[in-house]
């Protein structure tokens, strides 16, 4: 409980005593590259393969002649959009971005770089963390859209190359009974998860005490806590929006 209270106080300090706006703009751009652009590769790999695997496995399970083959594509699409693209991508990002943020801030803390900022009269929490949070909330939805696209494309490639589904059936399937609202829901999730991952990891890193060992522990803790938070939030969002 005390930790959760401290976490909310920490969130409060991000928004008080801010610095000049152009400073944030520059930092925001840097962080978008660090958080977003540098994650494109891993997100692309993971989502393409997950899409491919879900297509093959769904086809494997749907052997009934009563169900049209295009249903495979429909299932891949809905799994990708509703769950795999947003949640799995964000779990992967929690590992990559979360440990990165906690490690960076933890190192800055123990090498007194945070103190150096404070002594200059700069709100170190706001200066260091706020751009990361905004960058995560801005870039994660884009990464998830990319992931969903590549996932469905991966399913197409795997399905057609192995011959379990024809290109025509696949395209028919992914257009069949499409619900645009799901796309909106898909973008809400990474927006929320991005906030959770960046703030939880920043919190872990920012309050690191001790030395290199504790920085490592803070990174691990950041990833663990972010993943738990994502799963809980995933459930709550599903209750709330569907």
């Amino acid at each position, binding site marked *: 409980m005390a930790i959760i209270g401290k976490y909310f106080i920490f969130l409060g300090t991000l928004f008080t*005593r801010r*610095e*000049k706006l152009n*400073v944030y703009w520059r930092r925001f751009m840097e962080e978008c590259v660090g958080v977003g652009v540098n994650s494109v590769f891993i997100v692309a790999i993971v989502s393409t393969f997950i899409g491919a695997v879900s297509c093959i496995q769904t086809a494997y399970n749907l052997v009934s002649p009563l169900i049209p083959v295009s249903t495979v594509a429909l299932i891949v699409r809905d799994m990708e959009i509703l769950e795999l693209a947003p949640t799995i991508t964000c779990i992967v990002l929690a590992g990559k971005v979360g440990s990165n943020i906690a490690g960076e801030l933890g*190192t*800055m803390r123990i*090498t*007194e*770089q945070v*103190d*150096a900022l*404070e*002594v*200059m*009269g*700069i709100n170190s929490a706001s200066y260091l963390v706020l751009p990361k949070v905004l960058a995560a909330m801005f870039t994660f939805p884009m990464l998830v859209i990319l992931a969903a696209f590549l996932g469905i494309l991966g399913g197409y490639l795997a399905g057609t190359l192995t011959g379990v589904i024809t290109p025509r059936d696949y395209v028919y399937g992914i257009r069949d009974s499409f619900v645009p609202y799901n796309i909106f829901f898909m973008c809400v999730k990474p927006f929320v998860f991005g906030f959770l991952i960046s703030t939880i990891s920043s919190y872990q890193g920012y309050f690191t005490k001790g030395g290199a060992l504790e920085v490592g522990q803070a990174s691990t803790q950041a990833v663990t806590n972010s993943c738990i938070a994502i799963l809980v939030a995933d459930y709550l969002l599903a209750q709330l929006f569907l």
Partner: protein
Amino acid sequence: MIEIKNIVKSFGDKEVLKGVSCILRQGETNLIIGGSGTGKSVLLKCIIGLIKPDEGAILYNDRDFYNSSLEVQQSIRREMGVLFQGGALFDSQTVHQNIQFPLDMLTTMSEADKRERVEFCLQRVGLEGTGKRMPSEISGGMKKRVGIARAIVMNPKYLFCDEPNSGLDPLTAVKIDELIKEITQEYNITTLVITHDMNSVMEIGENIIFLHSGHKLWEGDNQTLMHSDVAELNEFIFANKLLRDLRS
């Protein structure tokens, strides 16, 4: 001038500072000396406002730091330059960007003026031409000097250095000591140096404060240091064989 009044600070039930008072004079290098773990860094952090003391006051030219509004605290902070024990350079920025950082954040100077000021500070600490390197690519002594350059870039009125020459070879250590003393006299600022290096004590100690287990046991200059009758201080000074021989 900085007045330190009866600073008390505990962590949990461990009392680290037990009422330390002293005056840091302008235009002089003030030294805090003492063994490892006696609370020197904690006292420094209390003075510069990073750790709030449980009791006592810090007066910057009669402005009480902890009883001031945020605006006054900010303006006092803008008059401080601090060199941290490990340099505390931002590792994602080049040497030049590190030194320019306070100018970017706190002033409205033009880019050309900033560049000129940074070049001047680099030259002042004898590091011309290293501006493009990253902190990870320079040696420990150079980091300390970059740290000093960053501390003086805003023309501070108060300069704080936590162990500016620990871990350096004797020659570089002496150079850094001299640099600090020169800057202090040149700009007539109030300088506080924390050290346990006897060389620097003898070299630059104009006002020396000896800290021992949370108390100030002795205060004076490097002339009278050798002739004190405080047992703990003598033990600290004459740990070195050379100095022991010198006394006898």
